[in-house]
């Protein structure tokens, strides 16, 4: 019985989730205890152990909220709040999503263009690659506010500066993956098209590009998650404009830990959905390319 349960996906997943919950609740009680003690001492209240544990898990601004508090907040801010309200996580999610997708589209395009240049031209291989790698060693949290402030100063505001931060983070995995993908054709396949006297253009579209597809989708999965991080980071300095980043910042200003955690969970869920969407696209493309089912 136990073995059968553990052989599927559901069993192991349940075990892991349960373990996480136990650990989380343990930490929540432990971390919220000092404050609860202070409060009880000041109010001169003495609680029974179970009552005390219950109190640590129902504070308004706990150090670490319990999962049920986050779940309740998530339910309240998605289902019970209209999506047009500034308190709705769907409202903020849409803002983050639109700049993520726009930035990711830019990033993918930029990544592919750079990879094509690098693969076809020795000079650009040697001159571009060091800069591309260097670009990723700059902490994004340092560069994002500057980009947004500078662009605002020249009159570019709104979604574009935020999207550019997403682009900055997402183009990198695309370049690296596509350079590898466009170089994936074997010597024998390149010899083959050489015997047909194919032009570089034909070699690209008939051989290199289809060959690079698996690499493109793998990089896109990494890239879209990075794009979301970029969008959230870019929303920190813009503050009032909304998005999960703004929500996180507002939460930390006012010590609203439950709000911070629910924004985090919402952002993580959005990232998972985006990666899933890329995965589904990959499946469709694979099927159209006759991949073994």
């Amino acid at each position, binding site marked *: 019985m136990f073995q059968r349960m553990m052989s599927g996906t559901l069993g192991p997943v349940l075990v892991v989730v349960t373990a996480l919950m136990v650990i989380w609740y343990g930490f929540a009680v432990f971390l919220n205890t000092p404050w609860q003690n202070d409060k009880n001492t000041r109010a001169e209240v003495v609680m029974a152990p179970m009552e005390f544990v219950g109190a640590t898990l129902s504070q308004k601004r706990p150090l670490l909220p319990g999962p049920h508090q986050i779940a309740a907040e998530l339910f309240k801010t998605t289902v019970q709040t209209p999506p047009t309200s500034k308190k709705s996580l769907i409202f903020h999610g849409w803002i983050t999503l639109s700049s993520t997708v726009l930035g990711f589209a830019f990033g993918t395009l930029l990544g592919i263009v750079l990879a094509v240049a690098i693969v076809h031209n020795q000079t650009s291989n040697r001159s571009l690659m060091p800069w591309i790698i260097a670009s990723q060693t700059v902490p994004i949290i340092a560069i994002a506010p500057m980009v947004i402030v500078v662009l605002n100063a020249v009159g570019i505001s709104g979604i574009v500066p935020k999207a550019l931060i997403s682009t900055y983070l997402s183009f990198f995995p695309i370049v690296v993956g596509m350079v590898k993908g466009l170089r994936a054709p*074997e010597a*024998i*396949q390149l*010899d*083959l*098209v*050489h*015997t*047909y*006297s*194919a032009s570089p253009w*034909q070699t690209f579209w*008939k*051989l290199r590009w*289809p060959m690079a*597809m698996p690499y493109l989708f793998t990089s896109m999965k990494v890239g879209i998650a990075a794009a979301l991080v970029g969008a959230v980071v870019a929303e920190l300095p813009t503050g009032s404009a909304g998005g999960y980043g703004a929500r996180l910042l507002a939460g930390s200003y006012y010590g609203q830990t439950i709000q911070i955690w629910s924004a985090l969970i919402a952002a993580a869920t959005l990232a998972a959905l985006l990666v899933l969407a890329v995965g589904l696209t990959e499946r469709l493309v694979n099927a159209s*390319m*006759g*991949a*073994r089912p």
Partner: protein
Amino acid sequence: MVISAKNLGLTFQTGDGTVEALKDVNLEIKAGEFVSFIGPSGCGKTTFLRVIADLEQPTAGTITVDGKTPAEARKARAYGYVFQSPALFPWRTVEKNVALPLEIVGMDRRQAAAHIARTLELVELGGFEKKYPWQLSGGMQQRVSIARALAFDANLLLMDEPFGALDEIVRDRLNEQLSALWQRTAMTIAFVTHSIPEAVYLSTKIVVMSPRPGRVIDIIDSPLPKERPLDIRESAEFLALAHRVREGLRAGHSEDS
């Protein structure tokens, strides 16, 4: 003369010095001949084929293909090349794989469709047009790659150990089919192998080669008739020819060991 090589040489520069892949190769191949190149690895048989195909550049001597330089012949699409592995594009169906060279040449679709149907018929693969490579056996995949090499009607077919990776039974069958194909089409075929029976069964001329430096040590004209059933391999003529090839290979080997 389809191929004419005079004092052809090719040396590679490698980490541990120069390698003479080909030295003083003199060879003439007439239209309609089936020529096999046989020898141990490193004897330059594949290199010679690649020189004909303009995939390697000779460092000495001259070679003409259809009276032109190899590069001109390649640009004129004078030959089809079959590699050691089928090298099919996995994202293309059988017919799309055969269509690849025609797309590159820029042949119009209707004309191309006729070519594809005819070449697939030649390699007995009619009915498999819509299959993907992974749905075919190794032997069938190699036949698709032969069809692809035949697609633009070149009169010269270059084959580099095309059946080397296949088992004996499939290989016999493909040899028989290839022989029949050659008789029907009157093409010139240059065929690299290291199987003595395969070389003797298929060829009108056998070029025996030896390594270090890669060179031709014997050129044997086959006395076998053009029509060749598989059981010709039991005949005395066949065995005598095979013996001569084996002796030639052994002589080439003893020089450097």
